[in-house]
């Protein structure tokens, strides 16, 4: 019977010929990831009575959420994770300042097309940009994978999203993803996998695919997959992780739960308004709302093309005096490249505050927490009440271009009105 890419990957890892949506399987995991969440995973691992991580080479640990440690308690957590990596011979350990876990998984060659990846972070589906089935689980789940190599999963129904045509100027992957969240809702893909296809997706780079897969989490998706193509293969080869195996593709005639079709040419800059990611409107409809902070970065949008888009708008201009613009590259590699290309110089000259690669203020723990009544426009993934500090603050989510344009004007601004 014809199967979707997700079903094929899960069947292969469950040691079955086929799987059916709704079925529960115990599947072999190729790669597991944890960040500061490893602290609970380590506690659970010890309580399970496990001594050794089964396959240390299949484990990635990253310190990214509160880096450098913002308080003593976090410093102790970091020390614990470092010691565990050392004790268990986990060589794929990325310490403070290397970047956000999802970026590092892709950039350091840990993601293989067709792989089954679990991460103790909800945005783990980001790795689907390279054709893996990657899903977010809890830290105790990850501990069980360390101990047994396997995890229980419900086989998801699949949603196929087909996007055709070219993005208009000033419009990109974030606008596409936000349009889709607005259309299907924050629960629209719950317990389901999304598979993206179409000429628009074929034209995108891996960075844009990562943005799309990352924001699929905000539709409730368990995983999001872009089938590997020449762009994928070139990217992997460029990371020193060339892939020659047969790529997993959906069969023609595979059964989908829902099919969505979008035309890229009809999209425009979009913004998710407080306090839910599916409260989406065109930027022009909320233009003029004043902001206090603008955030450019994160696993959603902290890559080179994002910094380039913002630098393109802010070159020779100044961030409005009433706005704090915070810039966080998604990794050290990206930051270095952005420095070489002059993007960081441009952003600093415009008045930006540069932070170390990592999660930055996204989760509201440090590095740009909001006061009651403040408004922030951000390229990050969540605008829940209280996400970035005070529950009385407002968070708007938008693309790097919209965030840069808004930082320049001091009010929410359609980037097409300031592009040169």
């Amino acid at each position: 019977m014809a199967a979707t890419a997700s079903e094929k990957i899960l069947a292969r890892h469950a040691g079955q010929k086929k799987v059916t949506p709704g079925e529960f399987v115990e599947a072999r995991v190729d790669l597991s990831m944890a960040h500061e969440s490893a602290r609970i995973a380590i506690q659970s691992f010890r309580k399970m009575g496990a001594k050794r991580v089964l396959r240390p080479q299949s484990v990635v640990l990253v310190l990214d959420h509160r880096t450098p440690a913002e308080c003593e308690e976090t410093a102790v957590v970091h020390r614990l994770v470092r010691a565990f990596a050392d004790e268990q011979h986990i060589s794929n350990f990325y310490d403070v300042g290397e970047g956000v876990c999802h970026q590092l998984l892709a950039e350091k060659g840990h993601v293989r097309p067709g792989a089954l990846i679990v991460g103790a972070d909800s945005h783990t589906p980001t790795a689907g940009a390279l054709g893996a089935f990657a899903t977010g689980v809890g830290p105790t789940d990850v501990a069980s994978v360390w101990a047994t190599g396997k995890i229980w999963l419900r086989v998801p129904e699949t949603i196929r999203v087909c996007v055709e045509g070219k993005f208009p100027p000033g419009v990109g992957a974030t606008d596409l993803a936000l349009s889709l969240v607005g259309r299907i809702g924050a629960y629209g893909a719950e317990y389901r996998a999304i598979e993206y296809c179409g000429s628009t997706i074929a034209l995108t780079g891996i960075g844009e695919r990562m943005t799309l897969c990352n924001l699929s989490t905000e539709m409730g998706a368990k995983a999001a997959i872009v089938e590997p193509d020449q762009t994928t293969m070139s990217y992997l080869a460029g990371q020193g992780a060339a892939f020659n195996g047969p790529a997993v593709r959906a069969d023609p005639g595979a059964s989908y739960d829902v099919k969505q079709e979008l035309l890229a040419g009809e999209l425009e800059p979009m913004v998710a308004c407080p306090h839910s990611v599916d409260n989406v409107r065109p930027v022009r409809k909320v233009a003029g709302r004043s902001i206090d902070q603008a955030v450019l970065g994160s696993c959603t949008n902290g890559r080179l093309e994002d910094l380039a888009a913002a630098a393109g708008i802010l070159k020779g201009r100044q961030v409005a005096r009433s706005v704090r613009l915070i810039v966080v590259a998604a990794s050290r590699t990206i930051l270095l490249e952005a420095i070489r290309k002059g993007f960081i110089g441009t952003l600093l000259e415009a008045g930006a505050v540069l932070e170390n690669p990592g999660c930055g203020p996204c989760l509201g723990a440090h590095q740009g927490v909001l006061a009651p009544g403040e408004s922030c426009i951000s390229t990050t993934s969540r605008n829940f009440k209280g996400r970035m500090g005070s529950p009385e603050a407002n968070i708007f989510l938008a693309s790097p271009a919209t965030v840069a344009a808004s930082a320049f004007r001091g009010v929410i601004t359609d980037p097409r009105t300031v592009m040169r």
Partner: protein
Amino acid sequence: MKAYAISGRAIVLGDDITTDAIIAGKHCRMADPERLAPHALEGVVVNFAGKVKRAGAGKGNGPLGAIIVAGKNFGVGSSREQAPLALLGAGVKAVVARSFGRIFFRNAVNLGLPVLKCPRAASVIRDGQTVTVDLAGGLLRCGGEGRVLPGERLPLFMMGILDDGGLVPHIKRRLMDGKA
């Protein structure tokens, strides 16, 4: 299998209670249920932990405990295990909701916190009403009036994890049996 029936007083909540609302990111540097508990649902319910305690102060046959009854998408968002940990720390006995955030649902089962999908619970149950979560039957029984609301029964292996007290003891047993 243990016959799972958990009784308690309902604390009724609305739709889309996010993991940031259950426990804010700034508190997730902690992982002890007791220390997380005072911050559980901060900004949603004033002194939630106190409300759970008061709900549990049952007369007669010992304390009752509290059961959250929520609308759609309870626990949407982060993978933070601190969310179910904070609820457990506050003394919550079970969570009933119209639907759940996927990872919260996993985490709850993994920590031994019973969860029941029950579409109509939040619109029928009143705050403070005594309810019984019948996990084996996949039902919610409303105290006093004998009314029964249908829910979704958990798959057997998830019941097995809950029976063992969560994923940690479940895996521990499997490792000891050499079945992992």
